[in-house]
């Protein structure tokens, strides 16, 4: 089928303002949007800037706006879009560096500010083996371990668009992953940070994050659980 592809372009070295380029491509319904962009780079315009690596939705490189909605280009097939007009734009709310490449630094800073690592200074089991954790205890936080830090969620959040200081769903998801891990001992610290003005209360349950997450993480649910943990002090 013939696809009309409209791609956001911006080269700060030569342009003051962004523009859109149009391409017409032959494509299969089962092609990934990433395949289309690669085709553009291979056959039309090699200068198109984008990030990508794994090509099957596990590395988190190629989150972008596809027909107005955040998704991984390698996980959206042409047939999923139900349209032969496809518009590709960079993520919203992060500075565009070039074409579809945005500045991820603020995103990672938010992530790091929530101590996204296991903290437990208690002595390890004396037999030198693993800490015991039941299957149910793993299930308690397993969903949020799936995050690939693609930023599709945070950049779809109205609160984040309005104010980039909002820590954002991705950071909360990664805090959740440790707050509810029975082996971790620093839940109080993280929750205290999340209890600030730029923290979890900025979430207005707009739900774009959950709709956008390519890993199908129940983000809004995770955020609600964090809010509950802060207000009730309960962690299970």
């Amino acid at each position, binding site marked *: 089928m013939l696809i009309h592809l409209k791609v956001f372009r911006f080269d700060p070295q030569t342009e003051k303002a962004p523009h859109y380029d149009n391409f017409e491509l032959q494509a299969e319904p089962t092609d990934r949007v990433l395949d289309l962009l690669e085709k553009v780079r291979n056959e039309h315009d090699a200068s198109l800037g984008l990030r990508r690596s794994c090509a099957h939705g596990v590395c988190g490189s190629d989150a972008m706006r596809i027909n107005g909605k955040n998704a991984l280009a390698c996980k959206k097939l042409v047939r999923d879009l139900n349209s032969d007009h496809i518009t590709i734009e960079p993520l919203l709310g992060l500075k565009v560096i070039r074409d579809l490449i945005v500045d991820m630094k603020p995103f990672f800073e938010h992530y790091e500010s929530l101590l996204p690592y296991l903290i437990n200074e208690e002595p390890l089991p004396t037999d030198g083996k693993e800490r015991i954790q039941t299957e149910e205890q793993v299930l308690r936080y397993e969903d949020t371990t799936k995050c690939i830090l693609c930023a599709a969620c945070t950049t779809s959040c*109205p609160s984040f*668009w309005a104010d980039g200081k909002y820590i954002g769903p991705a950071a909360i998801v990664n805090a959740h992953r440790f707050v509810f891990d029975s082996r971790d001992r620093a839940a109080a610290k993280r929750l205290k940070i999340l209890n600030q003005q730029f923290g979890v209360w900025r979430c207005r349950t707009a739900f*774009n994050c959950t709709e956008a997450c390519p890993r199908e993480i129940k983000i809004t649910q995770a955020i609600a659980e964090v809010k509950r943990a802060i207000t009730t002090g309960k962690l299970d």
Partner: protein
Amino acid sequence: MSYLKTTLTGYAGYRGREGHWAFLLHRVTGLGVLLFLAIHIIDTSFVYFAPHLYDEVIQLYRSTIFGLGEIGLVFCLFYHGANGLRIAYLDKFAPKDWTIEKTRRSAKIALIVALVMWVPAAGWMGYNILHHNYGLFGG
């Protein structure tokens, strides 16, 4: 980058679903109701502070323009209430139900509840305006 531009592009251009629209509508209706409420408290307080003005103000409320605004207000409060109840209930009693299917459904239900309450109310209020202001329906 200007936050305002990003924000507006996102609000209007992002293809969000039920949750996105519920958020926008909840915010707009909340602000609308608040604006009305602030005015309403002040004018009602005239019954004590400036009783001679009160009936004049009420007269203003009876105008067609205000009447239509009032119909809008009723929608705003119905929607904001229904959707707010949804949010408060999920947050406080059923955080596990913040899932895609359930959220899409509950957001739709909130809108439908608001409309179901509003349509007859709007009809009745519209009737009252036509009746009192234009003498229709045998007024």
